[in-house]
């Protein structure tokens, strides 16, 4: 096997520090990106393990491996870990940091020290969340939504978990501020708004949502602590409070948070598809503006989580209408990705396979979202396994598969080595098959009336639950193959050149692995991000 030595100026070598301190105190956006990658992906694996345990419990009716209290804690920690420790910080923190500054022709982000501080806040918040599992009354059992009145009364360690999420929220806000400033102020000469890669556009839209919506989560979590510690009565009707107001406050953040999770994923897909279809993206401007439209309209639809909460009919009407409005920019993106494929010279390598899966799985997730967005149908399937299946199609089939696509697409650039293609395709096939068996069964179960968040169920739901659990094992096998192949490849695989995929964005124009400050000279951009002819790639 040929060996590849990083160039002397590679970001792997060129630091004044050694060992762990060269990472945890580095202000280089690439090192911070990798810190985010390993920490968020580590939590993803923890979340997967908890999810597998949940599926084993549900494999047969009655108690299988855990009782109801443990089941409640397990699904809560699964949700908290996946949402707050993986999906929300994962894509912006890892790939936003790794790729975005290079794509705009910058040497680093606008505030490198703030960037490092953001990661530290994330790490401290994560430690606090983990501490909550083993202290006080034990792991929280409220679900990741921390709904009152239960979250105000339960004896489990909700206060500490909420504090951890509160700290992580600040990390998200600071990353958002940093990225907005970077994209406004540090673009290279010629990198006009019309030449920004669509991944950058999506990170930009995401950053605004992070800055504007996350403070509301912080305030809401503080109010939970005020309820628990001071007995404030803010959400207690007996004392003039309003429990539905908690749901408003929580979802004002947490629905836009869905877009923090999915917008960067859409950016990845918008970058991967033109490269592997060897065609400029179809409808660049519409995709760019649809990211902003999703960010704006998506911030006004939180009420669709609350149709059965006792909210007024007027509010249901308004939120239902706005939910359908969000479908328009989402559909624009799907239409443009598919149109890009039309008459393209499609190369079905691993990043593309994950990207194509994204389009299908996200579309299923989005269309089932419309069933939930319409009050008339939502009332029948609210809090059933249909909802669980739906959001896993969007979050895992969407954001998760895009994350895997990004791992295969960009990590070779930063490691200088590449995974083996055939095992990657086999892993994808296992994951795609297992995913659909796992979550499609859940949606059918939900339509049949199986509620979510129950550790037991009626015997009539048993066959599909068994099928769903078998799907989780197939998915897990695919994940293991993917991880072994990917990381084996990154450390011992075949060396790659500066532009292994034939991309036209700026990260493919610099050496592999990138130098510490990315560019010897500030680049002058003369063509669009998907103009393969002008970029001189075949």
């Amino acid at each position, binding site marked *: 096997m040929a060996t590849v030595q990083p160039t002397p100026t590679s970001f792997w070598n060129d630091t004044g520090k050694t060992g762990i301190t060269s990472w945890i105190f580095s202000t280089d956006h690439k090192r911070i990106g990798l810190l985010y990658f390993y920490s968020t992906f580590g939590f993803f694996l923890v979340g997967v393990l908890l999810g597998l345990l949940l599926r084993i419990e549900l494999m047969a009716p009655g108690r299988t491996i855990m009782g109801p209290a443990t089941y409640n804690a397990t699904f809560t920690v699964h949700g908290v870990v996946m949402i707050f420790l993986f999906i929300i910080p994962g894509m912006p923190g890892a790939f936003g940091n790794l790729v975005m500054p290079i794509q705009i022709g910058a040497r680093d982000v606008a505030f490198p020290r703030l960037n490092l501080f953001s990661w530290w806040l994330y790490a401290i918040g994560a430690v606090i969340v983990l501490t909550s599992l083993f202290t006080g009354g034990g792991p929280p059992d409220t679900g990741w939504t921390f709904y009152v009145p239960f979250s105000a009364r339960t004896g489990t360690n909700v206060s500490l978990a909420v504090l951890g999420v509160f700290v992580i929220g600040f990390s998200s806000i600071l990353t958002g501020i940093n990225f907005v400033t970077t994209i406004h102020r540090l673009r290279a000469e010629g990198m006009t708004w019309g030449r920004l890669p669509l991944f950058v556009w999506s990170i930009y839209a995401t950053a605004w949502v992070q800055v504007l919506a996350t403070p509301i989560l912080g305030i809401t979590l503080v109010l939970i602590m005020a309820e628990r510690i001071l007995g404030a009565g803010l959400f207690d009707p007996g004392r003039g409070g309003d429990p539905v*107001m908690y749901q408003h406050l929580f979802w004002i953040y947490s629905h836009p948070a869905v877009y923090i999770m999915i917008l960067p994923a859409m950016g990845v897909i918008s970058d991967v598809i033109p490269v592997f279809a060897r065609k400029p993206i179809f409808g660049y401007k519409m995709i760019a503006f649809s990211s902003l439209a999703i960010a704006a309209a998506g*911030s*006004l639809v939180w009420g669709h989580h609350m149709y059965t909460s006792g909210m007024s009919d007027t509010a249901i009407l*308004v939120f239902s209408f706005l939910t359908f409005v969000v479908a328009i920019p989402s559909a624009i993106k799907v239409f443009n990705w598919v149109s890009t494929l039309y008459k393209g010279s499609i190369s079905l390598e691993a990043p593309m396979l994950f990207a194509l899966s994204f389009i299908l799985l996200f579309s299923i997730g989005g269309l089932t979202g419309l069933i939930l967005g319409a009050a008339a149908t939502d009332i029948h399937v609210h809090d059933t396994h249909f909802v669980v299946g739906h959001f896993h199609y969007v979050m895992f089939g969407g954001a998760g598969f895009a994350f895997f696509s990004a791992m295969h697409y960009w990590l070779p650039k930063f490691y200088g080595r590449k995974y083996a293609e055939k095992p990657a395709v086999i892993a994808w096939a296992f994951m795609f098959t297992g995913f659909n068996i796992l979550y499609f069964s859940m949606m059918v179960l939900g339509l049949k009336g199986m509620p979510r968040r129950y550790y037991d169920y009626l015997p009539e739901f048993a066959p599909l639950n068994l099928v769903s659990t078998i799907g989780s094992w197939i998915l897990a096998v695919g994940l293991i193959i993917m991880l072994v192949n990917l990381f084996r490849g990154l450390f011992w695989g075949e060396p790659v050149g500066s532009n292994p995929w034939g991309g036209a964005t700026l990260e493919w124009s610099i050496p592999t692995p990138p130098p510490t400050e990315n560019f010897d000279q500030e680049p002058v951009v003369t063509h669009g991000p998907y103009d393969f002819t002008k970029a001189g790639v075949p």
Partner: protein
Amino acid sequence: MTHETTAHHIVSYKKLVMVWLGLLSLTGLTVWVAHHNVGIGHVWGSLAIACIKSGLVIAFFMHMKYEGRLLRWFLLLALAIVAIFIGFTFFDVLYR
């Protein structure tokens, strides 16, 4: 790209103490309103006092009175978004 610079303004201790005393007085007024039956003024009066207090904090303690136009626009944007978020909850609260 343009670089907007603003003169660095130092707020005197005297002014800061005056603002602080003003905030304390307004807090006292809030408590008074809470303990007296002033009809519709109970809610609107409390909200008005809270708005004045936050205005004082933003203007002096957050230094916004002395900042450039860009930061003021961003503040306005943030306030508009908060207003929209709160406003939308009234589709629920007003029609229950």
